């Protein structure tokens, strides 16, 4: 890592000055004569930009643009994550509103804008890192990084002539003019050495170390104590006795009279039919309820009772034939009575309480009533006075229902 040997190829002519005033005048002179020059100062000297006729920096535009991108992407991220993809109810608040998103949006705006500002400044505008700049390790650099001010005129300038440049700098007031050669080591040694072997080597090494570290952490470290407590902790496993309670069960038997959340107990079990018939249907007689009832009826009831409740089903013959729901008896039953049968079962019919929810049972009852009326429609049902047309219409309705049900 010593100082690299220099070639004989000239890089630039450099002149040193003593005061900020001198450098101002010199910068002004050089800028009107040469284009490929630079001024070096130990700290930012105000007014030098004008003297060198530099354009104002474009940095502000980058900061603003990326700040705006930060704002928008933060809002989109929060909106999508908490408003669309993963909605979780927190205190009944809306999934996405602006006020709780503001802190994170602000932080991301600042973060993106700040990092862009520095990144653009260092790497894009100032073209760093440039660790083998020919100016390094020179007496000139040592001086301008301490307390002197310097101007260089590069050999790549179209008007460059060694003698002229030296004389020019001397006439501009430089007390010390020197010639700086390029390094010998590289052919093209004025470019940033990002693709240098050493640098790439360090990058590869870092990548390997990070990858190994991550792999070992995720696949080995997290399975060692104390990180493995999730596996080794006391917990209830299916089909295994629990040591938590003396009886070996993991769950307690609920106390007498406990009601599960969302479940209404059926209070009429074992009571005579006379009581049951006072149960009334809580559901409204609406299109949605009927469609629901039809769906449930076709799923759970039609295998035995048939699509029209006539007792002629596809399972006929394999069980004792179920009674028709179109009979006078069932038609005169109250809703509660049918509900009682669905809930508790009757004869060979088992209880459907665990398969069909409470609401669905009532919906089925509404549908059964429709089936019954469709087979025994009266004139009032269709609102017609002519008896012939009524019959036709009743048959049409039946056909309609038949067509509907077979579609399902």
């Amino acid at each position, binding site marked *: *890592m010593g100082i690299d040997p220099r070639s004989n190829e000239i890089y630039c002519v450099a002149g040193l000055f003593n*005061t*900020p*005033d001198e*450098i*101002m*005048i010199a*910068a*002004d002179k050089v800028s*009107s004569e040469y284009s490929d020059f*630079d*001024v070096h*100062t*130990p*700290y*930012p000297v105000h*007014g030098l*930009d*004008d003297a060198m*006729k*530099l354009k104002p*920096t474009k*940095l*502000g535009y980058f900061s603003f643009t990326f700040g705006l991108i930060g704002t928008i992407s933060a809002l989109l*991220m*929060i909106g999508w*994550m*908490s408003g669309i*993809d*993963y909605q979780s109810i*927190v205190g009944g*608040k809306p999934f996405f509103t602006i006020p*709780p*998103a503001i*802190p*994170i949006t*602000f*932080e*991301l705006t600042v973060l993106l*804008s*700040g*990092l862009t*500002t*520095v990144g*653009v*400044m260092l790497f894009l505008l*100032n073209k760093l*890192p*440039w*660790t083998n*700049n020919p100016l*390094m*390790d020179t007496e000139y*650099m*040592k001086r301008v*990084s301490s*307390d002197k001010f310097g101007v260089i005129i590069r050999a790549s300038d179209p008007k460059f002539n060694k003698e002229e440049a030296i004389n020019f700098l001397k006439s501009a007031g430089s007390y010390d003019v020197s010639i700086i050669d390029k390094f010998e080591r590289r052919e093209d040694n004025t470019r940033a050495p990002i693709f240098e072997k050493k640098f790439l080597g360090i990058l590869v090494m870092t990548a390997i170390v990070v990858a190994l570290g991550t792999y070992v*952490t995720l696949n080995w470290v*997290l399975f060692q104590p*104390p990180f493995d407590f999730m596996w080794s902790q006391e917990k209830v496993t299916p089909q295994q006795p629990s040591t938590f309670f003396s009886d070996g069960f993991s769950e307690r038997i609920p106390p007498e009279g406990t009601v599960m959340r969302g479940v209404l107990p059926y209070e009429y079990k074992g009571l005579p039919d006379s009581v049951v018939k006072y149960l009334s249907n809580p559901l409204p007689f609406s299109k949605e309820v009927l469609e629901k009832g039809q769906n449930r009826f076709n799923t759970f009831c039609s295998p035995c009772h048939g699509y029209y409740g006539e007792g002629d089903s596809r399972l006929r013959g394999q069980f004792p034939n179920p009674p028709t729901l179109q009979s006078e008896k069932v038609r005169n039953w109250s809703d509660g009575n049918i509900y009682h049968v669905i809930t508790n079962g009757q004869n060979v019919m088992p209880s459907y309480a665990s398969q069909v929810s409470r609401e669905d049972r009532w919906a089925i009852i509404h549908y059964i009533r429709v089936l019954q009326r469709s087979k025994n429609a009266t004139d009032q049902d269709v609102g017609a006075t002519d008896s012939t047309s009524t019959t036709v219409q009743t048959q049409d309705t039946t056909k309609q229902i038949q067509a509907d049900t077979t579609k399902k």
Partner: protein
Amino acid sequence: MAFGISVVALLIGAVSLWLTVYYGIGMWGNNSTIGWGFGIINFVFWIGIGHAGTLISAILYLFRQKWRTGIARFAEAMTIFAVMTAGLFPIFHTGRPWLAGYLIPYPNQNSLWVNFNSPLLWDVFAVSTYFTISLVFWGIGLVPDIAAMRERAKSGIKKFFYTIGSLGWKNSNRNWQNYERAYLILAGLSTPLVLSVHSIVSFDFAVSILPGWHTTIFPPYFVAGAIFSGFGMVATVLILLRKAFHVEHIITINHLETMNKILLATGTMVGYAYGMELFIAWYSGNQFEQFAFINRIWGPYMWAYWIMVSCNVGFPQLFWFKKVRRSIPIMLVIVILVNVGMWFERFVIIVTSLHRDFLPSSWAMFYPTLVDFGLLLGSFGFFFTLLLLFLRVLPAVSIAELKAVTPQAQPTIHLNGHNGHAEEVHLNHENA
């Protein structure tokens, strides 16, 4: 010597941390009523300390306060180390620090996203952003100084690291132009950031419904408190530093006096906030709120409350006297008391509000354990170890900035606008 002490403290902290990780949060004094104990107290305390650095750097830079240059670099380093220290506490308070990655919204295996309504998540973003921006701010300030050190480095290994650290900075004015603008933009960005971070930390408390926490004064009150405690810590370390390194000519008594004035101002603001809390408790007519404050002042933790009030409001009032402001020993005592007081402020806010809330049946007392104290000591050890290492390796005072503000550092001539030619140069009487 100082390094030895801080490393020992760091080791005690490391042992406490290991106990916490191995046996779990049960090693701490937290219980089912006081779920937040030393962990969050230390977090808020250290984050508060971290506020002075960026404040001194950014806000005073924007206000063109030249006296900041002597202390800015050091204060920025302090910010970074304080935020690092602070960040440890919430991570270890989760009890499973190795799962901290889940705090970041990234597409994980469980297709689970974080809760954006939670102030604790805002903390994650605020603290990490604050840390990153502070680090960058400190880093770009260091680049020209490291370049100057590179040119002077004798040994190869030093030169190697300084070359990489300086990124090949070459003091070119074309680079200085962009550099200055970037510094200005960063200062402008970090000024609201400083204010936002502690406001967000205060939301952890203020958005809850607990009496004593559920107040709108929290964000400004916390920010003032943070600046207060941060300046307290900067002053404490600077007083010792300038004595130890004999840099009385760089960090002058005038610097310290200005900082004392800021301490006086922010301390008085904090005192106003204490008063306003009491006033609102009375004025709101909310009996739980009133009880919370009566309990703070006369309850079982009244000693903590009175330490807080006397250290934060009482003693800084001595800075009204110029003699006190310019006396190093008195100053040192007061700034240390400010640090103590601000730590107790967080203790009072967290513990007294939690230990007696709405339900008397769930009232409890908080007794910190040895591990708690070990972690507190360890946090100081961690902070000071890093700080001392920084002082050893990197320039503690910004070289380039200091040069720029010395007399005669800037040219006395000015060119006529952008098209200035040599003929149009207006020289003043010296050069004419």
